[in-house]
């Protein structure tokens, strides 16, 4: 039998028992809606979580530190021979710059400083940013502009900090602020005595006038540890030029690493985020510790894969119940249409034709129920997003979609619904096909 005849007959048969078949189809729709609802919630939450990381613009960055560890954690974990760990100095920085697929290597600079504006003085954390940071999503909502060059005496202020200087942050654009900081001045390295004392560096209070060029509401991920939340950003070239003393310098001095410049952490920007893992492995082979957000994201993906699987299983329960309804409906149809099946066989229908007809009826219920279920699930998602949006607005928080239905979920849910319906149709279809036409024709 041709497909159009098959589906025409199947639709006709389903229309003949409108109420029963409609109820079964509604059952499938509820099952699919439940599945879509559960999975789209999981996908929405995953999308929300990963987009926060993506927005930070650190997907193509590898953070490099020395394996020297003041707290001895690595040594306790027997991860490294601390005494022989490589120092992250200028030579290492140059070596990192030579690695394939590396776009730039910049130091991580976070310092505690004071910012003066008019008669106000505020303590804060100043962070240096490379020019490449200006193209990331973190600066999408920047008021004003990013730095004009890598050595400009310019600053971008974080909005909350800017409010501490002026209730209307926009007033600060183009104005000058004074940065007061501790400058590290190199001492005489060869001055240490026979007891190993002496040498090191001196610290001097300095001031630098900066022009405020931008106010930013989002926080770029600058890679620092606890307390590294910057509120004033300056170009990384300027930060290096000012030679601001960092907490790490005390450790370097004690270790005697004061002959040249050493770094607490270097940010290695990779040309393509797809090569992050390869660059990260190369850095580890050089003897340094390397970390990228890909590591954290992979963990997050694993978590959501398990989370989605659980949601999918719970969502599928309703569809499993609906599949029992399909079996019941079609078995009833086989019993009611025994004589009709006998007539069809007498007129030349093969066992396969009869089987296909019942499969087609199951498939039609699956397609209609699946489509209705997806629509129902999507509407539920819209309502929940709307409700969440209202709540977030009331709480003065940015609107986020916690519910997300991707196109593949729509196609997949309808496909799954048809598959479940076909599996449910297996037994009734086989039963119909096996009917003895002579017995069926005698049936009243």
């Amino acid at each position, binding site marked *: 039998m041709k497909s159009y005849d098959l589906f025409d007959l199947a639709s006709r048969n389903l229309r003949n028992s409108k109420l029963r078949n409609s109820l079964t189809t509604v059952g499938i729709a509820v099952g699919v809606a439940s599945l879509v609802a559960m999975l789209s919630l999981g996908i929405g939450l995953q999308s929300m979580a990963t987009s926060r990381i993506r927005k930070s613009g650190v997907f193509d960055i590898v953070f490099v530190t020395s394996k020297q560890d003041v707290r001895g954690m690595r040594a306790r974990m027997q991860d490294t021979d601390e005494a022989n760990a490589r120092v992250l100095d200028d030579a290492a920085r140059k070596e990192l710059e030579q690695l394939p697929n590396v776009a730039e290597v910049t130091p991580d600079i976070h310092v505690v400083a004071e910012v003066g504006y008019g008669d106000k003085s505020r303590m804060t954390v100043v962070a240096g940013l490379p020019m490449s940071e200006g193209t990331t999503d973190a600066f999408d909502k920047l008021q004003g502009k990013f730095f004009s060059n890598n050595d400009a005496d310019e600053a971008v202020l974080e909005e909350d900090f800017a409010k501490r200087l002026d209730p209307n942050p926009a007033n600060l654009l183009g104005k000058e602020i004074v940065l007061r900081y501790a400058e590290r001045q190199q001492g005489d390295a060869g001055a240490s005595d026979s007891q190993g004392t002496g040498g090191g560096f001196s610290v001097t209070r300095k001031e630098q006038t900066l022009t405020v060029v931008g106010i930013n509401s989002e926080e770029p991920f600058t890679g620092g540890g606890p307390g590294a939340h910057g509120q004033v950003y300056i170009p990384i070239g300027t930060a290096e030029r000012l030679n601001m003393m960092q907490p790490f310098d005390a450790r370097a001095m004690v270790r005697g690493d004061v002959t040249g410049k050493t770094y607490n952490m270097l940010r290695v920007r990779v040309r393509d985020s797809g090569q992050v893992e390869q660059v990260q492995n190369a850095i580890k082979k050089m003897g340094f510790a390397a970390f990228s957000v890909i590591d954290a994201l992979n963990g997050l993906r694993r978590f959501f894969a398990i989370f989605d699987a659980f949601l999918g299983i719970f969502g599928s329960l309703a569809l499993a119940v609906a599949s029992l309804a399909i079996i019941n409906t079609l078995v009833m149809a086989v019993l009611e249409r025994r004589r009709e099946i006998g007539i069809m066989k007498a007129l030349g229908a*093969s066992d396969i034709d009869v089987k296909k007809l019942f499969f087609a009826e199951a498939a039609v219920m699956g397609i209609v129920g699946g489509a209705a279920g997806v629509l129902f699930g999507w509407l539920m998602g819209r309502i929940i997003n709307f409700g969440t949006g209202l709540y977030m607005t009331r709480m003065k928080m940015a609107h986020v979609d916690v519910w997300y239905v991707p196109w593949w979920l729509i196609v997949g849910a309808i496909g799954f619904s048809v598959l479940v319906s076909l599996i449910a149709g297996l037994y009734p279809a086989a039963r119909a096909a096996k009917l003895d036409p002579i017995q069926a024709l005698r049936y009243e």
Partner: protein
Amino acid sequence: MEAANDGRVAVQLSSVTRHYQMGASVIRAVDDISLAISRDEFVALLGASGSGKSTLLNLIAGLDRPTSGAIVVNGRDLSAMASEELARYRRETVGMIFQSFNLVASMSLAENVELPMRFAETPKDGRAERIRQALERVHLGGRLHHRPSELSGGEQQRGAIARALVNNPTLLLADEPTGNLDSRTGNEIMELLREVNASGVTVVMVTHEQALADKYAQRAIHMADGKLVEQAEVRQ
């Protein structure tokens, strides 16, 4: 009496038996029947209830398989056919009509007549014309969209004949076609079957009315207890 086994033979039965197991006992519904039916012949199968005539008709129709023996129709042995081949045989070679008409109640007359064409995968384009012709042949040209419940018994049986003939079968099998009809309507149906036979279709009809056999069939075959007991030419 057997027809000669040549190209003129439409149906050839050789030592056909059909036994049913009912608990410990065996029911011999058809018991060692050999028979030949010529092309264009109109044969009546007569006998009391339970004589095996309907079972024999179902065997010839390919709805049932013999316990032993061979049934050859148009040179092809039905007992050697797979289920799919038998289905094709039923839709291409055989037309069937029943005592209780067996039209599908939820379908219109036209849709009932279209049903065998769906199974035969007849292209959709020419179907409407063939349905119209088939129904006009049985004088139901004006009742295409009527449901079986809106038709009289005679009209339903004429509709069933149109359905049986729409795929142009060479063999028409009728199981008590007038059993549910009054004598006048029954005669109308029999006249129709005679016209069908005259157009070159072999007709095998099960009936228990000797008068109908005498009037319309060329040969009457009497059965009793599953056996063929008598054959006689009844019409020239």
